């Protein structure tokens, strides 16, 4: 088993790892926004809004991410094209519109899971907190914004951390639409070196390094939050 090919192809892995982290961060950022929005819709008193949220969450959670990516990339992008962002293209080293399509697909998928995490977090907060806020002069939305959601986020931080770690690994599926992330980098190196095994081992080790570090950072953040209590 030889890893001498790394001298020549290390850059692919570095670029792939960078893009994986970037993709994860973008997807999680928009996933949290989508998740919060749909969690609040699902908890809404308005039945129509509630059904929209339930439909989104159940459909996304009930279908494979690979199919979602393909539908978005080969279907939706025929009608809606993602704009080219020059700064992002420069950062990732190729046309950013495909990258954005991949990020959107992962964000939409993550949003459904984050929505359920946030919903559970909000429902874990004692009903008395909302009532206390309302009886002290706050509107429902103010109470949600300033009292309930901040407490819920503290409670769901471990679950969001897990989602972040899971997402790092899930981004690998965007390689099927040709996005140059870590799995795709391993694939390219396999093709170029005609080695079937070692390039994937390198990719796996890098994935593990990223996820292990991310887990530790999440743990550190959790401890910090506990101390602040």
């Amino acid at each position, binding site marked *: 088993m030889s890893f001498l090919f790394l001298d020549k192809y290390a850059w692919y892995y570095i670029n792939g790892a960078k893009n994986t982290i970037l993709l994860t961060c973008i997807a999680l950022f928009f996933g949290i926004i989508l998740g919060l929005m749909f969690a609040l819709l699902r908890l809404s008193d308005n039945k129509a809004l509630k059904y929209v949220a339930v439909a989104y969450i159940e459909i996304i959670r009930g279908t494979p991410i690979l199919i979602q990516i393909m539908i978005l990339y080969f279907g939706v992008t025929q009608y809606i094209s993602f704009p080219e962002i020059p700064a992002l293209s420069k950062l990732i080293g190729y046309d950013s519109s495909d990258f954005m399509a991949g990020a959107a697909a992962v964000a939409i998928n993550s949003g459904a899971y984050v929505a359920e995490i946030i919903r559970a977090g909000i429902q874990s907060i*004692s009903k*008395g*907190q909302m*009532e*206390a*806020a*309302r*009886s*002290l*002069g*706050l*509107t429902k939305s*103010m109470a949600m914004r*300033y*009292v309930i959601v*901040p*407490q819920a986020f*503290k409670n769901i931080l471990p679950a969001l951390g897990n989602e972040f770690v899971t997402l790092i690994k899930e981004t690998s599926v965007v390689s099927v639409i040709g996005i140059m992330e870590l799995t795709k980098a391993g694939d390219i190196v396999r093709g170029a070196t005609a080695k079937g095994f070692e390039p994937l081992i390198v990719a796996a080790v890098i994935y593990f390094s990223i996820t292990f570090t991310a887990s530790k950072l999440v743990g550190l953040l959790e401890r910090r939050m506990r101390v602040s*209590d």
Partner: protein
Amino acid sequence: MADLSLRHVNKKYSSNTSAVKDFSIDIEDEEFVVLVGPSGCGKTTLLRMIAGLEDLTDGEIYIDGRRVNQLSAKDRDIAMVFQNYALYPHMTVYDNMGFALKLKNLKKKDINRKIEEAAKILGIEHLMDRRPAALSGGEKQRVALGRAIVREPKIFLMDEPLANLDVQLRGQMRIEITKLHKTLKSTMIYVTHDQIEAMTMGDRIVVMKDGEVQQIDTPENIYNHPANLFVAGFIGSPQMNILEGTVHQQNNIAVVRLIDGTELAIEADMAEILLDKGYNDKNIYAGIRPEHLNAVVKSSPDKKMTYISGEVEVIENTGADVYLHLKKCGIKMIAKISKIAEIELEDQVNIAVNPSDIHFFDEETGEAIIKL
């Protein structure tokens, strides 16, 4: 501050169970009203309806003459203190108290002034930078009160605020809240199931059972003139002794003959009322408070008193008082006496009671038969 009117307020749940039935009361400005009753009697539901946290099925609520049925909680200008305090755990004491004011866009110096004033009244100035997790039960309760005070609401609502505190602290906080009411000169509605709190704190007490008002009156009147058997048994500790008997007329005087044959003399004007109302030879309940039963061991009978004898089953010595648990032919009674004298277990003792201290209740309705 404000006055409050509730008119024919009803609350029914979808299962058709009634939590509150036809509740009406007028509460004056600066009055301290206590809602008291056993668990599940509807007192908290009533408080939540006043707060706007629960919808009415029927009836009307007026604050300062303005109908507030359709107003949301935030627009009613009330402040509520909860049993579990409901402090915001992610905020300091200072932020907990000033939060609602900050959202009202008050000036920082006004917020500071209000918080400082409230903190001074409650003695919590030193806790401002702490989070709720670092506070004791009593401190949390003070912060919850402070959070309500700074808003200067028209009405304070308190839902069993002392229930989670230990006995000693509860006694202390009872005094604190009473003093607070005097200081703030505010309208307060206070829910409890503890009749000691009700008796010591309220200007008026509302006794509730199964969603219905049993009696609304001053603590003194509720204690001395209970409207029915439920109120008689609920207010007073230990509770009133209820004895079943039959009214009999004997040579121009009336007595109540208990099931064991003991005859209790009835005060002349009360006897007249009982006979006028047709209670002769009818069953009624006689109620006697434990403190109105005096244990007499070896003394000559007092003409003014009437007597019941019984065997001492249990002696409870609390230090200040002694409770004698007596039984006679299936009748159980408690007498509260100030010192133990020479009474021992299984002694037969004579219990003296002043006829004017006996309450009478209709057997069918449970309503008090009252002197006019």
